[in-house]
């Protein structure tokens, strides 16, 4: 092929690139809203046992620092308060409802008023600024979840939320402390007994679709409770539009 032809083709190529690209550059940008986040669609099969949360790529609550170090342990396990004392809407609404500050103040007007954490609650109460809790049990926007349906059907809170009453429990553990010299060598190793409180609210279940389907896909109690209508009920429970919106 002659040099002339080659050059001509090269020029034509460049011209084509310029002309064609110019067409595309006119396009405008569209701002996206991420209502269908990709983290909810995992390619992976069931995550490996024990690493459920990590494998599924979900926030477990670890590292989520809540504005107030609220111990469920003290309230639920020690004092025996019912979940619905604070999460009042659980039986009557789709949200369980994080308690209004005034609910806290019912008691804490008088109880432990000197605690710095209670001071924060009082500050919210006085100023009218809500406490901004971090959401741990979070479902994607396209999922319709109604607490009331589950609570009314007798699903125990712990079946999904785990033993929340142990959150904030005082515990002891040992920590290995190492000392280093300037060269970075370990000079001293010591096991230190520590005690404190495990604060974070941890999500103990994956709360992914497969997990929901473990019950919704056909819970044994359906046959007991619905008799003739069991098939229909099973179909209703597994219907996409039962949970998706």
């Amino acid at each position, binding site marked *: 092929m002659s040099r002339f032809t080659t050059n001509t083709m090269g020029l034509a190529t460049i011209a084509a690139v310029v002309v064609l690209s110019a067409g595309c550059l006119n396009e405008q940008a569209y701002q996206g809203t991420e209502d269908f986040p990709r983290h909810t669609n995992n390619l992976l099969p069931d995550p490996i046992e024990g690493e459920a949360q990590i494998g599924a790529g979900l926030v477990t609550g670890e590292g989520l620092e809540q504005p107030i170090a609220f111990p469920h342990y003290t309230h639920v396990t020690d004092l025996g308060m019912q979940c619905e004392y604070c999460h009042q809407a659980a039986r009557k609404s789709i949200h369980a409802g994080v308690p209004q500050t005034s609910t806290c103040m019912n008691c804490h007007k008088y109880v432990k008023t000197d605690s710095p954490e209670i001071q924060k609650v009082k500050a919210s109460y006085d100023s009218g600024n809500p406490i901004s809790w971090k959401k741990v049990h979070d479902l994607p926007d396209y999922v319709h979840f109604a607490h009331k349906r589950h609570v009314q059907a007798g699903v125990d809170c712990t079946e999904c939320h785990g033993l929340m009453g142990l959150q904030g429990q005082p515990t002891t553990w040992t920590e290995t402390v190492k000392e280093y010299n300037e060269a970075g060598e370990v000079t001293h190793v010591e096991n230190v007994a520590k005690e404190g409180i495990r604060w974070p609210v941890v999500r103990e279940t994956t709360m992914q679709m497969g997990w929901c389907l473990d019950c919704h896909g056909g819970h044994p109690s359906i046959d007991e409770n619905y008799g003739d209508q069991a098939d229909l009920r*099973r*179909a*209703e429970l*597994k*219907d*996409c539009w039962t949970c998706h919106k």
Partner: protein
Amino acid sequence: MSTFGNIKRGTAVKGIFAHLDLFMTAADRLKKAGFRNFEVLSPLPRHEVLDVVSEGRPSPVRWWTLTGGITGITCGFLLTSLTAIQWPMINPGGKPVVSLPPYAVIMFECTILFGALFTLAGLLVHCGLPSWGLNKSLQDPRCQDDKFGIVFLDAKDSDLSDIVEVLRGAGAIEVTTGDDTIYEVPNA
């Protein structure tokens, strides 16, 4: 079943032929002399050449194909039906949960796919492929080009002279045993 499964590193004998008829003569004479353990090399699949080794037996690859096809149609049916039964309440377009007419397409495709893949597997297994470290005696570029070859990979020492004699007598242009070229027609 593998062609090369029982290779003992005995003495290799190789005869190269420039002409098909001479090659066929050599092969016939070797068989008449009772030799079966030789391999032939050919640049193209001519029936007479293949018959030397296959001796009219069909290739077992066909069983692989059949197995693949049956596996495919079964998998196609199971995949479509079992996954549909998982969600019986999800009813697209008013069709029954297990609806064979549409599933027949999937079953057909699976049949073809599995048949082809099994055939490929059978081919590779029976040909001993991939085998990049193949015995050098079998890797003769001339036999990819226009020559034919007869190769004994593990000829007994007692048979060596007979084999060489037959090859030479039939008109081989080159006969080698091991690494030694014992006969070569110049400019062939």
